[in-house]
């Protein structure tokens, strides 16, 4: 009979089950399994991680603001998840390829997104926010979990090419219920493909607490499929970096897939269309504010004498600049002309669609003489 498993009765406590290197108050904790993976990380690098998180939070806030001002149709805030996204994404090698969901603003930031890349999709200008090959990031995926299989297929290609690369899939706690995400684990394990699964357990799938999907640690599923996994404090950027390095090492060294559950929290609404007051229990947000990923690293660096007000001012200026550029890119976008709706449905000529395009062009032209 299978071993006894302890359910997560209380999600407020569930971080205790996770690997971490920085306590919420910034104290550095020893972790025999993670320490080796970040032995080389010095104060300057930690400050860069802090900068990333602060800039990201600013970008995210700008996204919300642009939506409120009618410039974007929607925005999916990642506030609270900065450590998970920055910590894991900063561990990637340039050649690695990422398959994200819609909330991975921080991941595309870390991959070198241009200012317009954050908003192009949300503004409704294009299907993909950015050029996937430029960032080595697949388009934001909206169909929950679908991208996990794409990552596995890509990793299978890496394997066959004998390349020194890894594919990475990001997805949420809700996504773990989708058949596709489970099939992805099965295919990955079957092929021993170099893929890393990063589940951001932010405790909510829109209005559903993670307990609707699972009353047990999600990371506990992967080993059953033959995939080693780690549950990490997703608000601890150093732990996330370490865990991701472990996972990438594992995948890169030919040992097959690895799985990370980063336990974090969605501090904002699901999207700008959502109203979390309808479902979020009293006090929960407050409790998680005390585990804010940014203040945690800030506290650690200050205590270590490695963070000054000048540092912070400089970071803040960079954040403001990023937001400004993003806004400018957004407002400067020019919508494609009507007939662009027909562009690149197919890669090769298509008689049926060409006829429709011609008819529609004639239709549009019929208005031209009009006042």
């Amino acid at each position, binding site marked *: 009979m299978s071993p006894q498993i302890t359910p997560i009765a209380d999600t407020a406590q569930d971080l205790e089950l996770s690997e971490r290197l920085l306590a919420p108050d910034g104290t550095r904790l020893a972790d025999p399994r993670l320490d080796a993976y970040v032995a080389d990380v010095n104060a300057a690098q930690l400050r860069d991680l802090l900068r990333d998180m602060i800039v990201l939070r600013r970008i995210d806030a700008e996204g919300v603001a642009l939506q409120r001002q009618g410039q974007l149709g929607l925005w999916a805030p990642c506030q609270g998840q900065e450590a998970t996204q920055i910590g894991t994404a900063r561990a990637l090698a340039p050649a690695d390829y990422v398959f994200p969901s819609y909330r991975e603003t921080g991941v595309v930031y870390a991959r070198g997104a241009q200012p317009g890349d954050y908003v192009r999709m949300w503004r409704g200008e294009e299907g993909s926010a950015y050029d996937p090959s430029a960032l080595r990031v697949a388009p934001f995926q*909206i169909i929950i979990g679908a991208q996990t299989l794409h990552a596995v297929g890509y990793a299978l290609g890496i394997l066959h090419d004998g390349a020194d690369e890894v594919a990475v899939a990001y997805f949420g706690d809700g996504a773990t219920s989708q058949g596709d995400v489970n099939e992805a684990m099965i295919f990955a394990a079957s092929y021993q493909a170099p893929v890393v699964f990063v589940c951001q357990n932010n405790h909510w799938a829109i209005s559903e607490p993670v307990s609707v999907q699972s009353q047990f640690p999600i990371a506990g599923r992967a080993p059953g499929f033959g995939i080693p996994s780690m549950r990490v404090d997703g608000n601890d950027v150093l732990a996330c970096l370490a865990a991701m390095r472990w996972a990438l090492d594992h995948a890169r060294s030919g040992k097959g897939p690895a799985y990370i559950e980063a336990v974090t929290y969605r501090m904002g609404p699901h999207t700008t269309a959502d109203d979390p007051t309808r479902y979020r229990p009293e006090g929960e947000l407050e409790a998680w504010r005390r585990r804010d990923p940014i203040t945690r690293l800030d506290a650690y660096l200050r205590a270590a004498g490695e963070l000054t007000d000048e540092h912070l001012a400089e970071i803040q200026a960079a954040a403001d600049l990023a937001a400004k550029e993003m806004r400018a890119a957004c407002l400067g976008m020019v919508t494609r002309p009507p007939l662009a709706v027909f562009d690149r449905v197919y890669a090769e000529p298509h008689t049926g669609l060409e006829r429709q395009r011609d008819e529609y062009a004639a239709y549009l032209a019929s208005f031209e003489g009009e006042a």
Partner: protein
Amino acid sequence: MTELTLGKALGAGLRRAMLDDEKVVLLGEDIGKLGGVFRITDGLLDEFGPRRVIDTPLAESGIVGTAVGLAFRGYRPVIEIQFDGFVYPAFDQIVSQVAKLHYRTQGRVKMPITIRIPWAGGIGAAEHHSESPEAYFVHTAGLRVIAVSNPEDAYRALRQAIACDDPVVFFEPKRLYHHKGEVDLDAPLADAPPMGLARVARSGTDVTLLTYGAMVGTALQAAEAAADEGISLEVIDLRSLSPVDYDSVAASVRKTGRVVVAHEASREAGVAAEVIASITERCFEYLESAPLRVTGHDIPYPPAKLEKYHLPDLDRILDAVDRVLDRPNSLTGADA
């Protein structure tokens, strides 16, 4: 009569069905505390409790598959698919199980499952949130397919769908959720017109304009505009897409001899193709010109900023009307 939005009418229909039959249970993502992302199930969790208003894990195949099991057990599940574009993961369970189990068991197992789908575009949404998948279900034998266009129909048809012993895919034009209309909340279902009946939304004599869902409103505006030019359009709201009420449709076509079918969904093998093929078969000798389609293009739903160039609108309908009437139009090039 009570004035309600389409959304509220649907909520009232669900509530009424749950009161009428305790075997009715709701399943879906976020339908509990949140009341669904469109708030259609708002208040129902409080009134009926978590055994009848069931927040499910995030997996559409799982939702439909468990509904099949509930139907085996004698329940009458009503599913909310969160958005049109999220029904596809459940396609296998719908096509291979829901649609076929009654036939497979020769009626020994009934599948009185209602699958509600907030549906179609025009709301500036992100990808996969503006799909019009109705033709897939119309093509699937064993299903019934309903599309509503106003609060009164919505209230009645949803109750009829739930009461029906067959599976019903129920399309709700999300762009109309906030549109208001009069609803008789106490009208007995027994007196209601059958679920499959089409409705003449406006009578006319020159051209039959067939459509459904949110496009009914556009069609009525087109009829108004055409009237100004002295053209009389008969607008028919199909309401039931499978089966289509061809008796009503044919009666109109025999009168007008000219037909335009409009829908948002793309064209190839869409509902309009079906309707035109059937009309041609039944009313060929009455047709004075080729029936025309005004539909979304055969493209994936475009980004929000371009959707207005995809969706049929008043002008595109009027252009087709001109074409079936052999008046100057975009293709003749002249004077449009």
